[in-house]
């Protein structure tokens, strides 16, 4: 039997702004809600939420729930969990999406544990489809297919939650596209009384100090990325990548293997456990092409692979393959760019 309940997106709110990842999920949520024929709902929890609906309405939210209380900002685990748990018992959403961020990955498990609903982390694709239980033969229509790489990215698994609601999933920033649905779209705004959902005893953890700053590294929005893998060989060799990046006006990215080896900081990690990028040019240096990395960069317009192994898996998705050592190839790229650019 089809489920007529709605789809809800937990919207992260920091410094007066809804997080990009939440707007990306509203965009995806709009498509899924249309496919299911249900409403798209947004939930914003925090302080000073006046007019916050204006930020989410253009992305297609039909309903905006606002829970305002000075103690609900900044985010802490128990109070936000309490809002979701108590609200979901009331409105029974069939699907709940949240960002696979420090907040979503702290909140999601706590809520799913309390509601005994399945939660799939770090999905790379969400679709609606049918399911037949192989053991019981029971058939389900219109379930959320939660698709994610597993096992270090070596496989892709499709996960379903046949019997428990809501079907919960987290998605990393940049994985889904953010698109205005309709600039004039209007939502029904529902102000909820925080006291109905959170009790004083939920405020157990106290934030003593907080330093939040916008990251200076912005690989997600860079049109050109020079990325290095384990094959770069050392932190010192990564300097060559920075030199090429500076010459081209690019950002430097890295594979998980390079980050794990300490060649590069985690903020630059591209792939399933890092950021997803779609630059117009991606220069992969010494990257073998583990699936978890490819998942995060395969939509790049042009891919150049520089690798001394002509059979590196990444070469199969590259537009240009340069077989050679990065110590030799990168200086040539720099030299000929300087020579030929105006």
């Amino acid at each position, binding site marked *: 039997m089809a489920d007529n309940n709605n789809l809800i997106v937990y919207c992260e709110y920091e410094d007066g702004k809804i997080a990009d990842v939440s707007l990306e999920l509203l965009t995806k949520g709009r498509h899924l809600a249309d496919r299911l024929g249900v409403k798209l709902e947004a939930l914003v929890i925090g302080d000073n939420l006046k007019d916050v609906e204006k930020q989410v309405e253009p992305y297609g939210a039909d309903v905006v729930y606002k829970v305002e209380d000075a103690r609900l900002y900044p985010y802490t685990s128990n109070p936000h969990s309490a809002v979701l748990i108590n609200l979901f018992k009331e409105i029974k959403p069939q699907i709940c999406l949240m960002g696979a961020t420090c907040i979503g990955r702290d909140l999601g498990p706590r809520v799913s544990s309390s509601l005994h609903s*399945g939660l799939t982390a770090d999905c790379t694709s969400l679709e609606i489809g049918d399911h037949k239980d192989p053991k019981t033969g029971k058939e389900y229509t219109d379930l959320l297919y939660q698709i994610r790489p597993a096992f270090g990215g070596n496989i892709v698994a499709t996960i379903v939650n046949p019997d428990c609601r809501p079907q919960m999933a987290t998605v990393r920033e940049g994985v889904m596209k953010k698109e205005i649905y309709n600039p004039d779209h209007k939502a029904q705004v529902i102000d909820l009384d925080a006291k109905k959902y959170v009790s004083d005893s939920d405020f157990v953890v106290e934030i003593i100090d907080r330093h939040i700053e916008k990251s200076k590294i912005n690989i997600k929005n860079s049109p050109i990325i020079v990325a290095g893998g384990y094959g770069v060989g050392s932190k010192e060799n990564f300097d060559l990548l920075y030199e090429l990046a500076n010459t081209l006006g690019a950002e430097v990215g890295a594979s998980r293997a390079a980050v794990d080896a300490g060649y590069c900081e985690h903020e630059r990690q591209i792939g399933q456990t890092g950021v997803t990028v779609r630059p117009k040019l991606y220069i992969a240096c010494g990257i073998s092409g583990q699936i978890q990395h490819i998942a995060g960069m395969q939509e790049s317009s042009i891919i150049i692979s520089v690798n001394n192994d002509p059979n590196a898996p990444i070469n199969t998705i590259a537009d240009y393959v340069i077989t050679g050592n990065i110590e030799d190839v990168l200086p040539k790229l720099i030299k000929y760019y300087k020579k030929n650019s105006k």
Partner: protein
Amino acid sequence: MSLNIIVLAKQVPDTRNVGKDAMKEDGTINRAALPAIFNPEDLNALEQALRLKDANPGSTVTLLTMGLPRASEIIREAMFRGADGGIVLTDRVLGGADTLATSYSLAQAVKKFGNYDIILGGRQAIDGDTAQVGPQIAEKLGIPQITYAEDILDLKDGYVIVKRRLENGVETVKAPLPCVVTVTGSADACRPRNAKRVMKFKRAVSPTEKAKLTPEQQAIVDAREGLNLQEWSAAYVEADPAQIGLPGSPTKVKAIENVVFTAKESLCLEDNDEQIENLVKELIANHTIG
């Protein structure tokens, strides 16, 4: 003040070395076929636990892990580095569990363990990367959680003060004990093995391992303190059969695919000046760069 510290740890397949027989037909992992390691962030958590022990004489650090009987390997590893002992929660009926069924089973084991002051664990395990089990255990025990912990700054008067490393900054929080703290890989690395402890605890065995020893070897294990590791079953921790293993898991694996990316026509170039200059010229001409 002496503390009872539990460290949640997992023996994980080394996902960097995955072979063809790694998956079973039902889509779950065939762990027996893979090299197994101590989950990296659980080692970061162990270090934080050992520092608490150093700072609070008389404290004990107990490793709690769920998995195959061979997971006793990571308990020994933890003991070589300073842990006092450990428990393997192992039972066929626990197999195929998703994060919710896993956290339920571990929370039952923690309840059985009883008196604890703080529970530490890695932020996430490298085989699933979900980061769910820590917070879910906290919820099931009805205690607070501190995720993304980088450093335990202080623990006194029934509170713990922890620095958290977030994607865009740091946060210092104060939580009442007991609580669950999950530690990120950016925290300090775990101290190495201590040679004296290796000598002392290399004979530590679980009941499964002990059963394979000769009576003489078993006598040696029993003669010294701390060499008998514990193995607990689902029944021992009074787990509800409906909430464990595959049946207790709300998420089901519908399909598993090996990923094949659509291959493109690649243009293969040699590392020579002419070919690289031509490529650069082409990229400038079509406004990709410059």
